[in-house]
């Protein structure tokens, strides 16, 4: 079974042109990559395109992948670069905020233990967080996304983005301070709950 194999083995086989092995990598990491793209772009269509393109580029450039390195930061870095291009294109052609689908529908919260009010509040909170992250300057948004939504270490972020460690720390700190300010009403609630 392809999915039982470790990344290194799947990468080795993919390099030899084994598409089934690469499909295993796609299945394993597509959710991560899609999440990064969605958090950065706030648009499911664009995030899907970015995810798709990221895997295609990864496949074509597998020879550049350093054997022994982790696949996840590498594919996420490709997705971040593609998302940046997409975001820049969007900046040149401003339209409605992509997070607003217009129908007011919100993503489902899988946990159904709460009352409808609580589910709605959770959704609202989640949207507020997504909007706050999407409102960050691009460089801060990327570092915050990779740290909080991908659980990457400072070192991994620095390597993925080709930045000095101190730059990553600074961007992360500034981004978080902005988020603290933006999400102040929700933070008061969290502290009250905690």
């Amino acid at each position, binding site marked *: 079974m392809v999915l039982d194999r470790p990344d290194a083995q799947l990468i080795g086989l993919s390099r030899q042109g084994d*598409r089934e092995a690469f499909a295993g990598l796609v299945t394993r990491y*597509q959710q991560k990559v899609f999440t990064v793209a969605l*958090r950065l772009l706030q648009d499911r269509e664009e995030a899907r395109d970015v995810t798709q393109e990221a895997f295609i*580029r990864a*496949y074509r450039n597998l020879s550049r992948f350093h054997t022994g390195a982790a696949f996840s930061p590498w594919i996420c870095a490709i997705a971040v670069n593609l998302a940046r291009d997409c975001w820049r294109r969007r900046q040149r052609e401003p339209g409605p905020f992509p997070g607003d689908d217009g129908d007011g529908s919100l993503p489902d919260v899988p946990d159904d233990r709460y009352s409808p009010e609580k589910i709605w509040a959770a959704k609202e909170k989640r949207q507020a*967080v997504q909007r706050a992250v999407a409102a960050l300057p691009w460089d801060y948004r990327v570092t915050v996304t990779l740290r*909080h*939504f991908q659980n990457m270490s400072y070192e991994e972020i620095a390597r993925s983005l080709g930045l000095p460690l101190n730059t990553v720390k600074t961007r992360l700190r500034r981004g978080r301070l902005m988020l603290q300010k933006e999400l102040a009403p929700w933070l008061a609630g969290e502290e009250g709950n905690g």
Partner: protein
Amino acid sequence: MNKHCDYWRELIPEYLDGELPARTAGEMARHLGSCPACRRELARWQSLFALLDLPEEEPAPALTAGIMAKLEESAPPSVYPGYRPAGALGLALCLLLALAAGFLGWLWAGAPVPALPKAIGVLFRILDDLWHSFAPGGFIHTGTGEAAGMLQGWAAVAGRVVWLFWAIGETLLVLARSLSAGIWLIMGALGLACGLMLNRAMRPGTR
């Protein structure tokens, strides 16, 4: 709040990220244990981190199929490794070609040649001497007990090697001085441009 607390508060996010060195993290824990104001700051950061703890998003189920369908249309992964030696070789070849073309052009244009054949002649004479030194019957085969002879032989070879490098240097110098700096610059730039184009052509596709 004092300056000491300022220092620790700066480090709270890194502490929560688990990015502080073990020793600093231990000191931070001790400080937090004794400072209610810093504990409140910690709670603020913890609540922000909790807010940011969103679940991963589920992509459309057809995503994998879409990616694999696109891959079916594309070429297999490139076999060139990351540092692209083929590209580097191309670059070196192009530079060499540009230099050779420039040199031939210089000769064709009726360059003053006396110094060049002289330098090349010296080079060949030394090479010939070296060849005969190492050939059967040369000093290496003078016998095992003749230490003085061996020493003399090695000294002669060392001298010739120095002379060889001198002659190579002289040849290069004659070549270098034969053209103006501007021509060399143009040839170098042309070679570099050719090399970069070739390098790019040999690179695995990224688009």
